[in-house]
C-alpha cells in the first residue's frame, strides 16, 4: 500500500514535470496587423535582404500578385502609412501590434481589419482564420426602372496556414498558404457607373516560402487579380514561451512590447521592453516565467527622500537624463544617468541613498 502510494506520487510528479516542460518549451509568436486598402494609392517598398525561401519558379508564379518588403510607404492622398523594420506609423501615430488597440483610421480607403497575435508550436501546422460576418449590400435594377437595395449573407475572410520552424536564429516558413475570400468588385448595372451592383465573390490563394529574422517587421502586400484593392499583412516573429507570455501579461498588461532573446551565463533570458504612460519598463524573464530583473523609469519626485537627497548631494547641478528603479533577487537599487560638465555619469544607489557604484564616462 505504502509502495503504491509512493509510485502514485512519482507518477503525479512526472505529469506535473511534463506540464511545466510543455509551458517552458519555446514557441514561435507571430504578431500581425492586417489592412485593406482600396482605390488608388502610391506605394514605395523595399526589401533589405532576400526573405523568399523557395526557388525562382515558385517566386515567378506569385511575384505579380505579392510584394514582400521590410520598408514601405503607402500614400493615400495626403495621408501616409509608413512601415519600417521596427515600427509602423499612420501619419504621426504609431500603430502597434496590440490586439486591444482600437484603430479607426480616418480614411475611407484604408481599414485595419485585425491585429491578431498567435503562439504557434514549432514545426506544427497551424491555421489562423479571420472572417467577417458582415452582410453585403447591393442594388438591383427592378423592372419598373427603380433600384432595390438587397443584402447578401456570405462569409468573407482570410485564412493563413503556417508551419514555422527555427533555423539559425531565423524563422523558416516554407509552406505558408494564404487564402482570401473577398469581394473583388461589383457587377455592372446598366445605366449606372457606380460600383453598387451585386458583389463578385472571389477566392485567391497564395503559396509563400519565407525565411525571416526574429523581432523585425515585414510586410506582405497581396494584389488579388482584377480586384480594386489590396490586402496588406504586416507581421513580426519572436521566440517565446507560454510562461514568459503570462509573466508579460501579469507585469505589463495587454501592451505592445519589443522582445529579444539573449543568453546570460548559459541561460536563455527574454528581454521585454514596453512604454506605459510614456515610461520605459524593461523586464528580463527566464523561460520558465520567473523574473530575473525589472527596470522601471521613474521621476525624481517619486524617489524616496534619502535617494533624492543623495542625488542632490552627488549630482548637484547635473542634468538628469534617466532614473530607473531596478529590482532583482539581489534587491532594489536606483540607477541615475546624468550629464555633468560634459561627462556622462551613472550612479547606482541603494534604498537608503548609499552610492553603490559611480561610473564616469569622459566622452
Amino acid at each position, binding site marked *: 500500500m505504502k*509502495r*503504491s502510494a509512493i509510485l502514485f506520487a512519482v507518477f503525479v510528479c512526472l505529469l506535473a514535470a511534463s506540464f511545466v516542460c510543455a509551458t517552458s518549451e519555446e514557441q514561435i509568436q507571430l504578431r500581425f496587423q492586417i489592412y485593406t486598402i482600396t482605390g488608388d494609392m502610391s506605394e514605395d517598398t523595399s526589401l533589405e535582404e532576400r526573405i523568399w525561401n523557395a526557388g525562382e519558379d515558385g517566386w515567378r508564379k506569385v511575384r505579380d500578385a505579392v510584394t514582400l518588403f521590410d520598408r514601405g510607404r503607402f500614400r493615400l492622398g495626403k495621408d501616409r502609412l509608413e512601415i519600417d523594420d521596427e515600427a509602423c506609423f499612420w501619419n504621426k501615430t504609431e500603430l502597434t501590434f496590440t490586439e486591444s488597440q482600437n484603430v479607426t483610421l480616418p480614411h475611407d480607403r484604408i481599414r485595419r481589419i*485585425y491585429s491578431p497575435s498567435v503562439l504557434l508550436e514549432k514545426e*506544427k501546422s497551424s491555421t489562423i482564420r479571420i472572417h*467577417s*460576418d458582415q452582410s*453585403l449590400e447591393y442594388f438591383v435594377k427592378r423592372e419598373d426602372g427603380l433600384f432595390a437595395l438587397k443584402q447578401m449573407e456570405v462569409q468573407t475572410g482570410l485564412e493563413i496556414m503556417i508551419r514555422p520552424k527555427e533555423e539559425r536564429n531565423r524563422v523558416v516558413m516554407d509552406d505558408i498558404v494564404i487564402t482570401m475570400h473577398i469581394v473583388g468588385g*461589383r457587377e455592372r448595372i446598366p445605366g449606372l457607373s457606380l460600383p453598387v451592383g451585386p458583389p463578385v465573390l472571389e477566392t485567391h490563394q497564395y503559396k509563400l516560402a519565407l525565411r525571416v529574422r526574429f523581432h523585425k517587421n515585414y510586410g506582405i502586400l497581396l494584389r488579388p487579380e482584377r480586384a480594386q484593392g489590396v490586402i496588406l499583412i504586416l507581421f513580426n516573429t519572436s521566440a517565446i514561451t507560454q510562461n514568459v507570455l503570462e509573466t508579460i501579461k501579469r507585469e505589463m498588461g495587454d501592451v505592445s512590447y519589443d522582445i529579444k532573446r539573449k543568453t546570460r551565463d548559459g541561460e536563455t533570458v527574454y528581454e521585454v521592453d514596453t512604454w506605459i504612460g510614456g515610461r520605459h519598463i524593461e523586464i528580463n524573464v527566464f523561460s520558465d516565467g520567473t523574473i530575473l530583473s525589472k527596470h522601471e523609469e521613474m521621476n525624481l519626485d517619486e524617489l524616496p527622500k534619502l535617494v533624492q537627497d543623495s542625488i542632490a548631494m552627488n549630482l548637484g547641478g547635473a542634468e538628469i537624463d534617466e532614473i530607473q528603479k531596478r529590482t532583482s533577487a539581489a534587491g532594489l537599487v536606483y540607477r541615475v544617468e546624468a550629464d555633468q560638465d560634459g561627462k556622462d555619469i551613472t550612479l547606482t544607489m541603494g534604498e537608503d541613498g548609499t552610492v553603490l557604484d559611480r561610473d564616469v564616462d569622459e566622452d
Partner: protein
Amino acid sequence: MDEFELRLKNLLLSKPSEDLRGRIFGRGPDRAVLAGILRRPIRLGWAVAFALAIGLVGFFSARLQSEITAPRSISPEVIVEICIVESGSNRNDFDLTKPSTHFLSGDLTVGVEDRRGI
C-alpha cells in the same frame, strides 16, 4: 483382472529420466525453469512501472511514426485560431470594391427620371 495384472498395477516404477524423455519425445522447453519464473511473485510497483514504460514507449513511437509517415497535406493542424471581426461600420471588411459604395450606409432614396419626352 487376474493376480498378475493386479501386482503389475501396484508395482512401483521409477520415472523415466529427462534424458530418456528427451530421446523419446524430443527436447521441449525447460518447463521447470519457466515454471520457476512464472511462479515468482511480481511486485505491484514493478508491474506499474513496466506498464507505464511500455505506454510511454508506445506513445512516443506512435508520435514519431505519425511525424515520419503522415503526408503533410493531411497532417492534423495543431492550433486553429478563429477571430470573428466585429466591424465598426456596416461595410464588409473584405469588400475591396472602391469606396464609392459608402453612401449605401445611410438612408438613401434612389429614383430614375425618364427625360426622354423633353
